[in-house]
């Protein structure tokens, strides 16, 4: 079963070792590469009394699984020291697409991005956006694997308008159909 989660729901999840059953960190923020439509990794906070930002980050390759209740890692050795982390991780807020306006390539504005929708249990693939519709209300749009994105705007294919879904459950099926239509 494909489980979809909103990226902001990952924030605060404990990072737990499979072998040790220890909560070594918790998710501080999600690092996203919009052009590739995938998560690069997660920045981390310390757990418990000494809470605060952790220097190490967790790249998506180090993730064993992302579930509803925890991000699982094999053991703490997969946490990456700041010097070793991918460059994109250091760029931070510029990568943030939340709040971007969503334009179709025909030039129609359909809303603004509220959240990312991530396939949980997989490789950090982002399959859609949760969007505040211009007419009011919330909708989900499926994501082609590549798209144009700037600091303020996201350009999606015209066909996207046909695939605006009201609920997260319907998005999973819509993504496959949408990508098939685009020939991806």
């Amino acid at each position, binding site marked *: 079963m494909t489980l979809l989660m909103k990226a902001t729901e990952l924030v605060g999840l404990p990072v*737990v*070792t*499979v*072998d*040790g*059953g*220890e909560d070594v960190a918790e998710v501080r923020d999600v690092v996203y590469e919009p052009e590739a439509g995938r998560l690069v990794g997660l920045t981390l906070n310390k757990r418990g009394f000494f809470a605060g930002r952790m220097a190490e980050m967790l790249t998506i390759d180090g993730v064993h*699984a992302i579930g509803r209740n925890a*991000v*699982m890692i094999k053991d703490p050795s997969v946490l990456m020291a700041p010097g070793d982390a991918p460059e994109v991780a250091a760029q931070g807020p510029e990568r943030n697409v939340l709040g971007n306006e969503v334009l179709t390539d025909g030039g129609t504005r359909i809303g603004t991005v509220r959240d990312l929708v991530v396939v949980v249990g997989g490789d950090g693939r982002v399959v859609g956006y949760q969007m505040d519709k211009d007419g009011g209300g919330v909708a989900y749009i499926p994501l082609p694997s590549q798209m144009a994105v700037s600091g303020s705007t996201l350009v999606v294919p015209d066909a996207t308008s046909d695939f605006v879904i009201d609920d997260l459950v319907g998005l999973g099926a819509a993504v496959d159909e949408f990508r098939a239509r685009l020939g991806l």
Partner: protein
Amino acid sequence: MNVESLKAALGRKVVSTADAEAIGTVDHVVLDVPGRRVLGVVLGGGKKARVVPWSGITGFGHDAVMVRGDAARPAGDEDEHRSAGGAFDVLGRRTLSDDGNELGHFTDLTFDTASGALVELLVGEHTLPADALLGVGSYAVVVAAAAG
């Protein structure tokens, strides 16, 4: 194979076969997580804890655990010290599948009284084979998702 429940075994009296004296009760167990075995029982807790390794147990019975007279000794290796501190007290602990979903609380495990080999894990309403056990830590017990 004689199968015993950990929940039932905790608190059971431990009796020396040398002088028939009760020397304590089963208060913790030492678990070998990768080996899926019970390595021994811990009498008492903390610094005063004594450990009876599996080889010192002559009979793991329903009414008493019989041990050789000289079998109880202070905690030795790191796992035994951690065990005496409650590190392997799995009952009631939060249980996560390795795909990151909570399965409920760890309710019991069963083991073969002859070898100490784990047989089954009981998590919430799930019964899992022993080899689903992946990790036991302060935050959670981790089990393999495929088995759930």
